[in-house]
């Protein structure tokens, strides 16, 4: 599942690096991190409607097990009742802004239950955002389990 984290952790989210080659734009970075938080809160609340305004129609999502989803499949997975995230903690994220494109890298830990079975994951993700008509929309998101 997409990473989730508490509102308090937002205070810890500070862009750590301005990658060489990417143009640093503080306002865009802050905006994108806010959207990441909104995304996570929407997932936590199983609020597919709230997610719709963050995700581009052509968005592709790769789950930690390699499952590929399109936008509608991802929204359905968020609304599914079989997954219940009990605790999700996100480590600081890094944002690289290239004009109308932004790439976010981060790590999150998630514990919960899926189909009645407990799970605990630590995953690294990459989200790619595109600025379109003044709005940032996510066009790609991928998670990978971090080996222990």
């Amino acid at each position, binding site marked *: 599942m997409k990473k989730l984290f508490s509102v308090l952790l937002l205070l810890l989210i500070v862009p750590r690096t301005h990658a060489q080659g990417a143009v640093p734009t503080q306002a865009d970075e802050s905006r994108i991190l806010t959207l990441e938080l909104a995304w996570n809160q929407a997932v936590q609340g199983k609020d597919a409607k709230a997610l719709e305004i963050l995700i581009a129609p052509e968005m592709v999502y790769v789950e930690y097990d390699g*499952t590929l989803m399109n936008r509608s499949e991802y929204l359905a997975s968020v609304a599914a009742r079989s997954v219940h995230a009990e605790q999700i903690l996100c480590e600081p994220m*890094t944002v690289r802004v*290239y004009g109308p*494109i932004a790439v976010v890298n981060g790590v999150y830990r998630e514990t919960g239950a899926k189909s009645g079975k407990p799970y605990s994951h630590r*995953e690294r993700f*990459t989200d*790619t955002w595109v600025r379109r008509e003044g709005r940032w929309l996510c066009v*790609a998101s*991928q998670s990978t389990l971090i080996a222990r």
Partner: protein
Amino acid sequence: MDRLLDSAFIYVDFDGRLMTKAEVLANVELASVQQVVTEAMTASLHGNTVVVTGIFRMKGMEGGKPYLRRGRFIDVWMYKNGSWVAISSQGTLIAR
């Protein structure tokens, strides 16, 4: 490969390791990959940027033992200064 990767390129390996461009280039020189095959690739264009999704199969040797991995990747390419460079790549093993 140096010319294919943006200076700020970030790679997330199948085991969740994050690597910079320098780390990727060093790792490529050390890795004993025998074969990499891609399949089912699709691309979507966003201005000067393309997002490529696909499946990779990788065969090689690690610690004296052979391995075969199948995973899904998303690469992000950007047209900069007259050439295409990758700005991001991530791999995730496919379960089953």
